[in-house]
């Protein structure tokens, strides 16, 4: 069985990263923006796992990092959703364009 080359996996993670970035910049809904950020985080996770497997198969550092990132992403999602709920209570909207009070 032929092994999948590293470049393919990196291609997937790069695509995932830029899809997330595109979503972050174009979507106005905060929940969607949060999802985009999760996409970007996951693209990084893929990178870690891939590099770990292909370059240092004897070590597990990359896997541990991935586990950490997943944990922190969960915490971050909880915080972000709390912020979004508070924003909704004060602005009756979760559109990011409606919350621009903090300007000059």
């Amino acid at each position, binding site marked *: 069985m032929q092994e999948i080359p590293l470049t393919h996996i990196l291609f997937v993670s790069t695509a995932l990263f830029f899809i997330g970035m595109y979503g972050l910049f174009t979507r106005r809904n905060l929940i969607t923006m949060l999802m985009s950020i999760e996409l970007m985080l996951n693209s990084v996770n893929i990178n870690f796992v891939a590099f770990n497997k292909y370059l240092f198969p004897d070590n597990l550092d990359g896997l541990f990092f991935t586990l950490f990132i997943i944990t922190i992403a969960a915490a971050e999602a909880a915080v972000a959703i709390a912020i979004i709920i508070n924003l909704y209570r004060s602005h009756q909207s979760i559109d*990011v364009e409606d*919350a621009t009070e903090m300007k*000059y």
Partner: protein
Amino acid sequence: MSNYFYILWIPLLPLATFVLLGLFGRKYLSGISGLIGTASLLTSTILSFVAAKQYFFVDGKVNGVFQKIVALKYTWLEFSPNVSIDLGMIVDPISVMMLVVVTSVSLMVHIFSLGYMKGEERFATYYAFLSLFTFSMLGLILSSNIFQVYMFWELVGVSSFLLISYYFNKPSAVAASKKAFIVTRFADLGFLIGILILGYYGGTMDIGLLIERFTSASSAQYISITGASFLGASMLTWGLTLIFMGGAGKSAMFPLHIWLPDAMEGPTPVSALIHAATMVVAGVYLVARMFPVFSMDEIALNIVTYVGAASALFAAVIACTQTDIKRVLAYSTMSQIGYMMFALGISKNGGEQGLGYMASMFHLFTHAFFKSLLFLGAGAVIHKIHSNEMKDMGGLRKLMPITHIAFLIACLAIAGIPPFAGFFSKEEILTAAFHENKVIYGIALFTAALTSFYMFRLYFNIFWSKEASVTAKDHNSHNLAADGNNSQDNHDHGEGTWKMKLPLLILATCAIGVGFIPFSQFVTSDGKALATHIDLVFSIAPVVLSVLAILLAASFYKNQNDKSDKVATAFGGFYTAAYKKFYVDEVYLFITKKIIFPLIGQPIAWADKNIIDGFVQLLATTTAKIASLIKGLQSGKVQNYALYFFGGVVALSILFIYIWK
């Protein structure tokens, strides 16, 4: 060498009192603030006497010479291992003598003020300021470093300013305090430059070291300071003259005297303490402290001599014409300080030739007692009459017998009639002047006669002249001390309480007695005892002149007559000029308003407004313009910020990957 560390408490106690009364006096201690101040000063006074006894009679003298003892030395500001500003306390004959003078006069004033200032609204503040002044003056006396002298010098100036403007709702008092502060500050500018000159060439600020370095003609410092010259005079002359300028400002020497008569706007006990007995002799003390250095420079000493003699004569002439009793006393103070100054100026350092130095210090010592007595007596009179003008007084000898006797003793003392204190010190000054400089001797003799004349003019006008007519004027004027003790007045001959009489009696005793102290055994320029004797033949001239002047004053003023007016008319323009204080104030006003303000002040104001302020304004407007151009970046939109962030990451990545290799 024994321990003098305890004299640290002498200045620290008044400082503690100042802090206590200044912080809590008005709210919590207003009733007993006077007693607190007096009690703490009493302790200081006792400590001063203990120190004087220990120094003069127990262990100050080693092999017949009084030693300079540094009781405390603390390195305060160290600029380099060689240059530092130290705080220290010096114990030598003049500082111990001044400790005794300042604490005892201050104590008398504290006690007198208990009666005089009773019922004042800011009673506690008054005592706080008095304590501040006493602290600063004691610190000035004990300073071992010339920069330390300067600091206390300014503190003394500030407390004088605060006390002159004590009645701050009187515009004249406010103006007088500002005048006193500005004139003495101007003089202190010279003092500071003088300190810097001596410090630069001497390489130290320590007075003992400065004296040591500048008095040996072979030391490197002496050669460098006399070698450098500016406008034809050596730097030593410049430094000493500028230091003397500071001293002349504080001591009200001509032409920097204009603040002293106006300073009489303050409460009278304050005038007694600050503007008669202690602060105004700070200039004399400064010259005496630096005297070994002064004695190395002929020109500076001559300046001291002639400024002193001119002030003595000038002030005595003006004093003969003034009608405000406190102003007469102010000019008299100026005249007597002139005596002390020229006595220092004609002196040499050490031995028989140092007679002038000893005489000057002796006169400072006796003058403090009889002049503060005169002021306190005048204060008692003003307390009774509520006026400073001679024409409101007269015939008070029956109403105020104790004040009358005390005042008479003080007048006799200042006139130099034996056996009162002033006789002995004035004789020493005249003897020194006779041996050194006949012109000065002539001026001094003439001034002595004038002194007797104006003092007895004052005395007869207050206590004799017309019959008592105080009832109309009494109790209706409140601009002076509040008359809180009227109830006692009625069964007390209207002289005030014992709090006011006790200091008068003590000081009167001093004015009689202190002349008999063998002063030359204790305070001399080189610390060795100096043999002096009163030459009876020599004393004839000044005493006879004084007695004649007193008789003249008696014939003019003892009963009301027009003789004095006739004489005044005979002098014509000279009398008017003297009455107007020789127009010195007007000259100052002309110079400041017509020359300094338009020619220097206004251009500087223009430069300040347009150039200095303009530069700052330019900075501000430029910043504001740039800010308004780029403030659009702060859009408040989260996605914009994220975009900037990614842009920044991309830019940094390019920088570090491709460019910064």
